[in-house]
């Protein structure tokens, strides 16, 4: 199957409110042609409502949707030409796999002679050749997912919408389907807008991720940007795991890193982003895997920060070990690779944690006190 390439998708101040309740508050977003963009957020963040407005099932209260340069906000769903994979697949139970996949061709008035070869090619693409005459109920969840994908792509849409398509599959199958979807998307060059609440799925699949909360975009960027430079505490916490440190800027080191005084007078250094004035109250995020457990008598190797604390808890994760270390009233979470060598500390042991200033990410908005400390 060849693709028709992708279309650019642009949302301009797209909003939806029900009565007085705002579900989506003026979302603006530009997705390049052929890009894989994920809307990521907790339930109630407005990501599904946004997708439903793009699909045409929910009428926006405000704003416009542009596909390439065509405004479609007032176009009925069947005229938008978007492929869509639903959360529960939404395969027609009374139709065979072939009839399901041929449905969009039939509705679009494609010549009947083209149905069979196109269906066969679509099934080949999703690696289910020869399944034409089965009914959906005779397929496993993963197979139904593939048929849904074939049906959504058979008419060569230039944008594919996916609403938590892998939510019902078990972990192994989900990872497999993630790779399959990426393979197909690359082969066809179709633009994909993907909705999920699974941050790992978003990180592994997306070119760029839109993190949403309460109907607003918190941050839009590549997985690396979101993980390494989260814009605020919500993003830092939602994508991966973060320790939050709050403090006041007391000065600047010669290398440009900011000197901060945290709770209890503890000092630490962070690489400032943008202009930070001395005296400003700021919050910083620190990834658990950036904390290094220093062995007894070991000297820091370039880390600007080193705090001492007491091990409160050890969580064995298999490939990694998580330590919760109490530093005064603060608890830091450190994650070390299993098999890094050296004995694993025990609860109650005193340990030293070191980390680099440029791994301490200052967050955009100053966070109130309750954000300080690891969860």
């Amino acid at each position, binding site marked *: 199957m060849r693709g028709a390439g992708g279309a650019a998708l642009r949302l301009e101040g797209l909003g939806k409110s029900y009565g007085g309740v705002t579900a989506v508050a003026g979302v603006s977003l530009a997705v390049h042609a052929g890009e894989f963009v994920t809307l990521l957020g907790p339930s109630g963040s407005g990501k599904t409502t946004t997708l439903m407005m793009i699909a045409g099932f929910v009428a926006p209260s405000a704003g416009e949707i542009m596909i390439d340069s065509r405004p479609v906000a007032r176009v009925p769903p069947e005229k938008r030409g978007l492929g869509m994979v639903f959360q529960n697949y939404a395969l027609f139970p009374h139709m065979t796999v072939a009839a399901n996949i041929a449905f*969009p061709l039939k509705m679009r008035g494609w010549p009947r002679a083209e149905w069979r070869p196109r269906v066969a090619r679509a099934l080949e693409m999703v690696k289910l050749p020869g399944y034409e005459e089965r009914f959906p109920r005779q397929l496993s969840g993963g197979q139904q997912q593939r048929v849904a994908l074939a049906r959504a792509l058979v008419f060569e849409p230039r944008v594919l919408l996916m609403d938590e398509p892998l939510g019902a599959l078990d972990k192994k199958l989900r990872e497999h389907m993630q790779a399959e979807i990426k393979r197909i998307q690359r082969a066809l060059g179709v633009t994909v807008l993907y909705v999920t609440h699974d941050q790992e799925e978003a990180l592994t699949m997306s070119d760029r991720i839109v993190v949403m909360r309460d109907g607003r975009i918190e941050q839009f960027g590549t997985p690396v940007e979101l993980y390494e430079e989260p814009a605020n505490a919500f993003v830092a916490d939602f994508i991966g795991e973060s320790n939050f440190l709050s403090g006041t800027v007391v000065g600047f080191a010669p290398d440009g890193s900011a000197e901060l005084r945290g709770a209890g007078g503890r000092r630490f250094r962070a690489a400032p982003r943008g202009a930070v004035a001395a005296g400003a109250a700021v919050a910083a995020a620190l990834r658990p895997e950036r904390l290094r457990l220093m062995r007894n008598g070991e000297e820091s190797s370039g880390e600007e920060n080193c705090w001492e604390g007491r091990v409160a808890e050890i969580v064995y994760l298999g490939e990694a070990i998580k330590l919760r270390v109490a530093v005064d009233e603060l608890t830091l979470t450190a994650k070390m690779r299993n098999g890094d060598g050296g004995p694993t500390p025990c609860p109650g042991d005193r340990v030293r944690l070191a980390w680099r200033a440029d791994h301490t990410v200052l967050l955009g908005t100053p966070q109130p006190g309750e954000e300080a400390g690891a969860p």
Partner: protein
Amino acid sequence: MSQSSPFVPATAAAMGRRSRRPPLALCLLLPALLLLGFVFLYPMLDIVLRSIAAPRGGVSLAHYGKIIAQPAYLRVFLITFEIALSVTVATLLLGYPLAYVLVTARRGIAAAIMACVLLAFFTDVLVRTYAWLVILGPEGALNQVLRALGSAPLNLLYNRYGVLLGMCYALLPYMVLTLYSVMRGIDRNLLQAARNLGASDWRAFRHVFLPLSLPGIAGGSLLVFILAIGYFITPRLLGGAGDQMIAMVIEQQVELGVDWGFASALAIVLLALTILGFLLYDRLVGLKSLFESKI
């Protein structure tokens, strides 16, 4: 094997304790089976025997011969099926949109409609039939309105119109509730999927909702048809001489003629025709193939 006694562990069943105790399923079914046996099977058998009993003992098919010999009785059967079929089609045409609104309307509206349907359902059939007398009569509410509007009065009582109106009204809830239960089980996502794939509102209905609601159409029609075939009070009160249905003739034979044998024969023919109709329906309509679509 442990299915018949779910509360007995398989090992206990294997040890032979099952043989000393009747299976639980049978115990649970027994009261219903006994009741059915006494109030249904036994009278049924009795009716069959009466229909073939000769006056002086022995077996005779004279009653059946009489039914075939007299065109009047065949005509009654014909009228019965005609009325039952008309009522089935009419309730389907009226009930389908109603059930559709019930599953698609906002909750408040749907609840109000459902209340109306259930009210009709729970009101006694005699009460409802007398209400039609009041509405349809020559001096009834409908004709008074028509007269006030300067129109000629309509003759809607003691003829086929009255029978059809009354029976449709009485049987509509059965159709609506059967359709409703099937329609409610149709995943609304499927309609969205159809729209997304290029179907207009109407075509999404035509290609997805309608086929998926066919079991409801089949079930509701069968239910209404079977109920209509044996209908008795409504055609008697609202119908005329030409609207005699078979149940009325059977009643006359018992009440007036006191001919239990002939009445039994009529009842057996009605039952046989109904079963035949059901089998034909199952064959012709072939629910499964009608329901599924291939390319």
